[in-house]
C-alpha cells in the first residue's frame, strides 16, 4: 500500500490541480489492475463496508498504545479525525508489511467475516506493521469513512491521460452500480462493450449558475424551461427493465415504485433526464411533500396517495438504443415530445414545458413567478447544444431565484471537523419572539476563513456555558441566513425547518433588536411552505 499512500500524500499536500492529475496518472500507469480498480472505486465513493464499530477501535488503539482511553478521547478533538488520531496515537510500526492496496482490502473483507476476537487480532496486527500514513488509510477503510479531496472529474481526467481514452467515454464507463467485486479493470475500463451493464446511466450534464445575462445574445438562441424543485433523475428503460438514478449516482428505482409502469409506455432503449416531483392535480407539489419520501426504503400506500411521484422530462439521451447526446438539443427535444405525446396522461410522466418570451425582460418576469410553480428558477440551454457530461460552462446555465433570507442572532457555537477542527464554524441561530430568543436553525458555511477565525477568537473569549462541545455565547452577532425552502417541523421548538440554510453575510451593521421574528418565519411558512 506504500505507493497508494504516496499518492494519497501527494494529493493531500498539494493545492495544485495539475500536480494532482499528474500524480494520479502516474499511479494508473504503474499500479496493478486490482489496485487501479480499487483506487477508482475509492475515488468514486465506492467504499468497502465498515468492519468494526468506532467504539471498539478506540479501545483497541488505547490498549495497543498502552495508554488510558481518556487520553485518546482528549487527543481526538485536537486531531479532528478518528482514523488519523488512531494512526498517530499508536506507537511507531515495527517492521513493515508492504501488501498492495487490493491486498489490504481483501484482508479487510476477510476480517469482516470473522468473530470479534479474530477481527481484533487482525486489526492490531495490521496497525503494528503499517507506517503512519498507511495505518491511517487502513483505519479509514476499516471505519467505512474513506474520503479523499479529489473530485471524480479530476480522477477521470488522470485516468483518461493514463489510458489514452476520451474523458467523456471514461466518465460514462465509471457510472452505474459496479464494485471491484463485481467487475474487473478490463471489463470496466479496457472493454468497449456498451451492453456490459444495462443499468449504466449517462453522466449528468450539470449547469453553472448564470454569470452575465448580457453575454447570452438573443433570446431566440435559447431553449428555456423551468428548473423544477425536486430530485434530478435519469430513467433508463432497456431490455424490459427500468432503472432510476439520482445525480449522486444513487439507484432510486425502488423508492419510486409508481415509475415502474413506464416500462409499458416507453420503448426499450430509452433514457430520459428529468426531475422527480411530487405531483397532484396537474401541478407540482412543494419539495416538502417529496422530502417525506426521501430516505425511506419502502413506500407505504398512504404516501403513494398523498405525494404521488412523476418524472418531469427535460431531455432525451438515448432513443431506440442509440446514444443521441451529440445531437442538438432541439432535435433531442422534438423526439422527446413525439415520444411523450404518445404516452397516456395516466402515466407518471410529463414534459417540462418550454417558456417563451420576446426579450430577456419577458423571461425575467417569468422567472419571478418561479416560487408560485414550486420551481427554483429557470434553465437556459443553447438550442444547438449537445448533452455534455459533468459541469461545463457556456451551453447551459441555471438562473435561480434569489434565496429566502432572514436576519438572526447567533446563540451557540461548535467547532467544525476535519480541516476546520480548530475553528468554531457550526452555529445555532435564533429569531425574536416577544422578548425571548427562539433557536430555529443551524448553519456552518458561507463565511470566509478569516471571518471564522475572527468569530472563533470571540467565542473563546465570550463562552458563557459549555454543553459538551457546544458553547453558549451572548446574543450579539447578527447574520443574514439564506435558505432555499421552509417547512413545518413539530420536532423543532420554532415549529419550522429550513432547507440549505447558510450564512449569507455577517451583519456587523445590524443591532440584535432589529432581527426577524418568529412571526416573520411563520409568515414565510404560510407563503412558501
Amino acid at each position, binding site marked *: 500500500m506504500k505507493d497508494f499512500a504516496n499518492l494519497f500524500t501527494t494529493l493531500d499536500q498539494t493545492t495544485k490541480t495539475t500536480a494532482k492529475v499528474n500524480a494520479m496518472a502516474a499511479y494508473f500507469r504503474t499500479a496493478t489492475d486490482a489496485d487501479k480498480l480499487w483506487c477508482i472505486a475509492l475515488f468514486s465513493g465506492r467504499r468497502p463496508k465498515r468492519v468494526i464499530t468506532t467504539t471498539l477501535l478506540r479501545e483497541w488503539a488505547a490498549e495497543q498504545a498502552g495508554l488510558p482511553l*481518556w487520553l485518546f478521547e482528549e487527543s481526538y478533538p485536537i486531531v479532528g479525525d478518528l482514523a488519523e488520531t488512531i494512526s498517530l*496515537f499508536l506507537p511507531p510500526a515495527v517492521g513493515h508489511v508492504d501488501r498492495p492496496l487490493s491486498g489490504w482490502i481483501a484482508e479487510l473483507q476477510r476480517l469482516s467475516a470473522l468473530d470479534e476476537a479474530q477481527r481484533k487480532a487482525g486489526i492490531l496486527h495490521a496497525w503494528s506493521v503499517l507506517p503512519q500514513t498507511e495505518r491511517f488509510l487502513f483505519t479509514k477503510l476499516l471505519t467505512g469513512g474513506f474520503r479523499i479531496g479529489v473530485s471524480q472529474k479530476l480522477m477521470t481526467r488522470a485516468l483518461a491521460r493514463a489510458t489514452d481514452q476520451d474523458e467523456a467515454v471514461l466518465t460514462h464507463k465509471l457510472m452505474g452500480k459496479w464494485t471491484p467485486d463485481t467487475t474487473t479493470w478490463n471489463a470496466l475500463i479496457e472493454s468497449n462493450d456498451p451492453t456490459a451493464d444495462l443499468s449504466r446511466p449517462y453522466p449528468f450534464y450539470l449547469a453553472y449558475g448564470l454569470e452575465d445575462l448580457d453575454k447570452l445574445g438573443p433570446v431566440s438562441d435559447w431553449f428555456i424551461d423551468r428548473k423544477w424543485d425536486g430530485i434530478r433523475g435519469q430513467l433508463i428503460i432497456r431490455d424490459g427493465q427500468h432503472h432510476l438514478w439520482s445525480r449522486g449516482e444513487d439507484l432510486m428505482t425502488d423508492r419510486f415504485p409508481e415509475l415502474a409502469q413506464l416500462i409499458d409506455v416507453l420503448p426499450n432503449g430509452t433514457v430520459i433526464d428529468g426531475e422527480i416531483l411530487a405531483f397532484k392535480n396537474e401541478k407540482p407539489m412543494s419539495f416538502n411533500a417529496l422530502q417525506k419520501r426521501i430516505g425511506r426504503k419502502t413506500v407505504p400506500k398512504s404516501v403513494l396517495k398523498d405525494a404521488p411521484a412523476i418524472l418531469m422530462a427535460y431531455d432525451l439521451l438515448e432513443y431506440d438504443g442509440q446514444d443521441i447526446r451529440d445531437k442538438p438539443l432541439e432535435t433531442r427535444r422534438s423526439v422527446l415530445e413525439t415520444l411523450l405525446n404518445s404516452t397516456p396522461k395516466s402515466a407518471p410522466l410529463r414534459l417540462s414545458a418550454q417558456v417563451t418570451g420576446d426579450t430577456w425582460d419577458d423571461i425575467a418576469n417569468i422567472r419571478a413567478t418561479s416560487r408560485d410553480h414550486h420551481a427554483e428558477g429557470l434553465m437556459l440551454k443553447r438550442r444547438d447544444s449537445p448533452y455534455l457530461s459533468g459541469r461545463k460552462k457556456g451551453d447551459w446555465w441555471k438562473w435561480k431565484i434569489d434565496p429566502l433570507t432572514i436576519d438572526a442572532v447567533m446563540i451557540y457555537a461548535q467547532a467544525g471537523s476535519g*480541516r476546520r477542527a*480548530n475553528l468554531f464554524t457550526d452555529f445555532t441561530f435564533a429569531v425574536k419572539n416577544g422578548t425571548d430568543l427562539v433557536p430555529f436553525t443551524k448553519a456552518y458555511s458561507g463565511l470566509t476563513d478569516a471571518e471564522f477565525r475572527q468569530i*472563533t477568537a470571540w467565542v473563546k473569549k465570550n463562552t458563557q456555558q459549555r454543553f459538551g462541545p457546544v458553547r453558549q455565547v451572548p446574543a450579539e452577532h447578527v447574520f443574514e441566513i439564506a435558505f432555499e425552502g421552509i417547512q413545518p417541523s413539530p420536532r423543532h421548538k420554532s415549529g419550522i425547518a429550513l432547507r440549505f440554510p447558510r450564512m449569507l453575510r455577517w451583519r456587523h451593521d445590524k443591532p440584535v433588536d432589529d432581527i426577524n421574528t418568529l412571526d416573520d418565519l411563520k409568515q414565510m411558512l404560510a407563503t412558501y411552505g
Partner: protein
Amino acid sequence: MHYLVPMADLLSFTPNGIYCEIGDFYIDPWRPVPRALITHGHADHARPGHGHYLATQTAAPVMRHRLGDIALDTVSYGETLSRNGVSISFHPAGHVPGSAQIRLEHKGEIWVCSGDYKTVDDGLSEPFEPVKCHAFITESTFGLPVFKWTPQDTLAQQINDWWASNAANGTFSMLGCYALGKAQRLLRTVDPSIGPILTHGAIENTNQILRAQGIALPDTTLVTPELDVAAQKGALVLATPSALNSTWSRRFKPHSTAFASGWMALRGVRRRRAADRGFIVSDHADWTGLNAAIAQTSAERVFVTHGYTSVFSKWLAEQGYDAQVVQTEFDGETLETGEAE
C-alpha cells in the same frame, strides 16, 4: 512536640511571572521586574523592560539585538552563581542556541525551570542535558501522545528531496519557518549543494548574529528589492511564516511552498496552512521526549506550563507525580496562531 513545617516553595507563580522569593528574582517574567533570569531569546520569554537580565553567553547577542541596550550579565552552562544563598546554574535545554534550563538550589532543595526544551539533538543547539531535581517546571506544547517527531535523518531526506525535485524543474522552494532557531536548524539540515539559499530579512538578521558568535551556517543570500530573482531559479527560499503567502513571496515564480512546524503532524493543520508540503519539525519536545525528560529528572513535583497543561498534568498525576497546572503567559507554538515561538 514537633511540628513538621512544610518547606516554602523555592519558586512561586505570581502575576509577574515565576518568582524566587529567597533569591528575589524572576524567571522569564512577562511584566517588568528588577531582576530577570532568561531561559532563551524567544519573544515570549525574553521581554523588554526588566531592570537586570541574566542569560547564557550564547543567548546574549540575540537578546541584545532584540531588546537593545539592556543590563545583561551572562553565564556559561554549568557555572554556579549565588544570590541570597540560592545557587543558580544554567543547563542546555536543546531548544535553540543558548537556551537553558535554570537550576536553583537552596538548602538541598533543587528546582529546575526548563523554559522551552527538546530532547533530540538538532545539530545546532547545545544538546539537552537532564538535570536531577525535586521539582521540575515543564512545558507541554506538544503534550499529547499523537505528537511524535520524524527522526532528524528522515526529515533531512524529506526536505532535500522536495528541494531537489523543485530545483530540477526550475521551481523555487519556499520554506516557512521561525526566524530564531528553526531557520538555522533547517540551514544546518539541508544539502547546500542542491542550489542557492535565499533568506528573508528577519531570518538573515538572526543568521548574522549567530555566525558572528561562531556558529557555522551555509552561505545565504538576503532577498532585497535589487536581487535578480530570475538568476536564482531553483533556490531554497527561507521565509518567515507571515511572509510565506504574502506579496513578498510573489516574486519567486514559479514556487512550491512548505511549512516547517510540529503542528504539521496534523493533517487538518497542514491543509489549513494551504502549503504544498508540511514538514514535521519542532524545537519543542514531543510526547516521548517530554515523558523521558521528566523521568530523567527524578522529580517528585512537576509543574506544567504552556500547551496541553490539564491533559498532560492529569497524565503525570496518574504516573504518580505530584503534578499541577501553572498558568503562564508564554505564547508557545500555539495551534491557534502557529506563529509564536
